[in-house]
C-alpha cells in the first residue's frame, strides 16, 4: 500500500504502532510531491531537509502526542519560527517568522512534522488561488480549473495525496470553498474557537484557522489539537474543548436539519443542486428531521462582507510599509516615497483594490453610509441565524454555487469572483461554525468535478457538525481519487 494515500488518523496510528516511521511518511510524501506537484503546484516550498530532520527527531522519541511523527501542511500565512511566511505576496519576500503561531506550537506539542508552505491567494484575498504572487495552483481533478481559494494550495495538496492534512484560514469561505471544489473536508470553526496568534491578519473580526483534510475524522483530530483558549489572542474563547471524535459516531437521529430557501436561489448549478438535494434525502433516512427555514438577509451578505472585510484589511495591511520587514523599495527620496512605492511594488492588483475600497468605506463622509451600515446589516444576518437555530440544530446548504471554474474565467471581474463565496460568507459574519464535506462528483461531459455540501452550526456547535459529517460520510460513497 502506498503510504501517501493514508488519512492523517491512519498515519498517526501506524506511527503509534511502529508499523512505519515518521521518516517513512515524510519520504513517501516527498516522492508523491515530486511526481505530482509540478502539475498541481500546490506548494510554495517543501522543506525536504528540515522535514526529514524533524521526522528523525520524532522517530527517536517515544510517541505521545496525537499526531506524533505525522507531517502536516500549513497555509503560507501562519508563522513558524525560522521559516518563510509570505502570504502569497511579494511584499513579504524574504520574511522569516521570528516566532511560532499558537497553532504551530500546538501541532508541535502533538508531535506533528511540518512539511512546507501551501500556496494561497495573496493575503487570503480571492477564491481561486490565482491571486498568489508566486504562481497559480491547479485543481487536481482538472488541471485547467482552479482549486478554489484562498486556501487552494492546502486543498489541492490534500486532494492529490501530497499531504495527509493541512491547516487553512477562512475569512469568507477560504477553507470551505476550496475544500468543496477539490473534494476535501474543510472546517471553519466558531469565531474564537482557535487562536489566531501568529496568523497574518486579513479581517480580524472574521478570520479563523481550521483544518482541510481527507475526511471528517481527520478534521476532528486537527481541531482537537488546535482548539482552545490562548491568552495571546484576546478574541479566543475560554470554553472547554470537547472530544470531537466522539461526536463522529453519535449518529443524527432526531437532529433537526434546516434547509434555507435563500441558498437554493437561481444561479445554483443544477448538478450541484441535485447532489445537495440527494444528500438531504440521505440525511433524512439517517434520522434527521427536515425543517424549512428562512435566512432573509442572505442576499446582502456578500455586500456586507466586502465593506467590512476590506475596511479591516486596509487597517491590517497598513503595517506592510517597508519599515520593519519584507520588501522595501530602492533609494526612496523620503518616507512617503518609501511607503507609496514599497506598497505599489509589493502588493498585487486584488490586494490594492481591497485596500482602496477599505480605505474609502472608512474615510470621513463615507463611514456611516458604508461601514456603519454594513455593520448594522451584519447584526440582521446574525439575528437570522439566531432565529433559525431556534428551529433547527444545523443548517444544510451547498458550499459553492458551482463546481470549480476555469483558470482565468473570473480573473478580470472582481465582482463575479466575490460571488463565488455567496454560500460561505454569512457564517463568518455571524461568527458561527461551518463544515464542507464532499457529496459526490458532477457527471456528463468533461472531467468529473467534486461538489461540496455545507453544514452550518451555531456558535460552538462543532460537535453537531461532526455528528452530521461523520454520519453522512458513512453513506456517501464516492471515488475520491482524482487520478493523478
Amino acid at each position, binding site marked *: 500500500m502506498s503510504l501517501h494515500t493514508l488519512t492523517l488518523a491512519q498515519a498517526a496510528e501506524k506511527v503509534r504502532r511502529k508499523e512505519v516511521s515518521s521518516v517513512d511518511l515524510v519520504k513517501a510524501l516527498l516522492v508523491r510531491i515530486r511526481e505530482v506537484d509540478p502539475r498541481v503546484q500546490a506548494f510554495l516550498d517543501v522543506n525536504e531537509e528540515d522535514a526529514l530532520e524533524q521526522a528523525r527527531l520524532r522517530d527517536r522519541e517515544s510517541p505521545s502526542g496525537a499526531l506524533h511523527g505525522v507531517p502536516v501542511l500549513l497555509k503560507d500565512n501562519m508563522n513558524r519560527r525560522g521559516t518563510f511566511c509570505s502570504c502569497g505576496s511579494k511584499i513579504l519576500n*524574504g520574511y*522569516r517568522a521570528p516566532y511560532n503561531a499558537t497553532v504551530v506550537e500546538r501541532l508541535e506539542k502533538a508531535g506533528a512534522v511540518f512539511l512546507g508552505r501551501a500556496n494561497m491567494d495573496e493575503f487570503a484575498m480571492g477564491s481561486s488561488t490565482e491571486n498568489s504572487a508566486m504562481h497559480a495552483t491547479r485543481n487536481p481533478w482538472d488541471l485547467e480549473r482552479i482549486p478554489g481559494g484562498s486556501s487552494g494550495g492546502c486543498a489541492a495538496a490534500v486532494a492529490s495525496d501530497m499531504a495527509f492534512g493541512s491547516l487553512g484560514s477562512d475569512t469568507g469561505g477560504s477553507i470551505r470553498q476550496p475544500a468543496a471544489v477539490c473534494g476535501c473536508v474543510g472546517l471553519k470553526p466558531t469565531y474564537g474557537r482557535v487562536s489566531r496568534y501568529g496568523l497574518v491578519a486579513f479581517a480580524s473580526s472574521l478570520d479563523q484557522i481550521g483544518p482541510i483534510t481527507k475526511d471528517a475524522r481527520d478534521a476532528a483530530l486537527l481541531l482537537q489539537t488546535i482548539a482552545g483558549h490562548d491568552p495571546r489572542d484576546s478574541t479566543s474563547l475560554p470554553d472547554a474543548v470537547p472530544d470531537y471524535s466522539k461526536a463522529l459516531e453519535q449518529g443524527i437521529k432526531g437532529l433537526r436539519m434546516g434547509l434555507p430557501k435563500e441558498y437554493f436561489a437561481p444561479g445554483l448549478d443544477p448538478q450541484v443542486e441535485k447532489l445537495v438535494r440527494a444528500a438531504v434525502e440521505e440525511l433524512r433516512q439517517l434520522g434527521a428531521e427536515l425543517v424549512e427555514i428562512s435566512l432573509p438577509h442572505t442576499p446582502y451578505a456578500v455586500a456586507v462582507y466586502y465593506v467590512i472585510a476590506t475596511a479591516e484589511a*486596509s487597517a491590517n495591511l497598513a503595517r506592510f510599509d517597508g*519599515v520593519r520587514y519584507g520588501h522595501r523599495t530602492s533609494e526612496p527620496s523620503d518616507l512617503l516615497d518609501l511607503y*507609496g*512605492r514599497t506598497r*505599489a511594488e509589493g502588493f498585487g492588483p486584488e490586494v490594492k483594490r481591497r485596500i482602496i475600497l477599505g480605505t474609502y468605506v472608512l474615510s470621513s463622509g463615507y463611514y456611516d453610509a458604508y461601514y456603519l*451600515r454594513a455593520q448594522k446589516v451584519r*447584526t440582521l444576518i446574525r439575528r437570522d441565524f439566531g432565529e433559525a437555530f431556534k428551529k433547527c440544530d444545523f443548517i444544510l446548504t451547498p458550499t459553492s454555487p458551482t463546481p470549480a471554474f476555469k483558470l482565468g474565467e473570473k480573473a478580470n471581474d*472582481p465582482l463575479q469572483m466575490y460571488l463565488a463565496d455567496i454560500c460561505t460568507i454569512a457564517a463568518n459574519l455571524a461568527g458561527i461554525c461551518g463544515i464542507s464535506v464532499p457529496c459526490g462528483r458532477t457527471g456528463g461531459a468533461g472531467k468529473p468535478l467534486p461538489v461540496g455540501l455545507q453544514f452550518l452550526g451555531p456558535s460552538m456547535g462543532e460537535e453537531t457538525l461532526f455528528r452530521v459529517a461523520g454520519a453522512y460520510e458513512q453513506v456517501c460513497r464516492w471515488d475520491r481519487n482524482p487520478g493523478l
Partner: protein
Amino acid sequence: MSTPSMDVRYVAQLARLNLSPDEAERFQAQLEQVLAYVEQLEQLDVKGIEPTAHAVPRSNVFRADEESSSLPVDEALGNAPQRLNNLFRVPKVVE
C-alpha cells in the same frame, strides 16, 4: 448612500499606495462596479439596529499582569530591510 463617487487616485494616496495610470483607470471602473453592488444595502431599514463589530463580543480582556520574556531585540530586528544599531533605519523624517 449616494451614487458612487470614489476618486481612486485620491483614496490610494490616503492609503499610501502609488498607482500607475493604467491601474488607476482599471481599478476605478472595477471598484465603481463593486460599489454599485454594495448600494443594495440601502434598501434595508437599519434604524435602531445596533452595529456588530465582532461576532463574539468580548471586551476588556486582560492577561494576568505577570512579567514574562519577549522577543530579543536582535530577533525582532531580524527582518529589518535596513537597521542601524538597535533601530529600524528609514529616510530622514525631520529636517
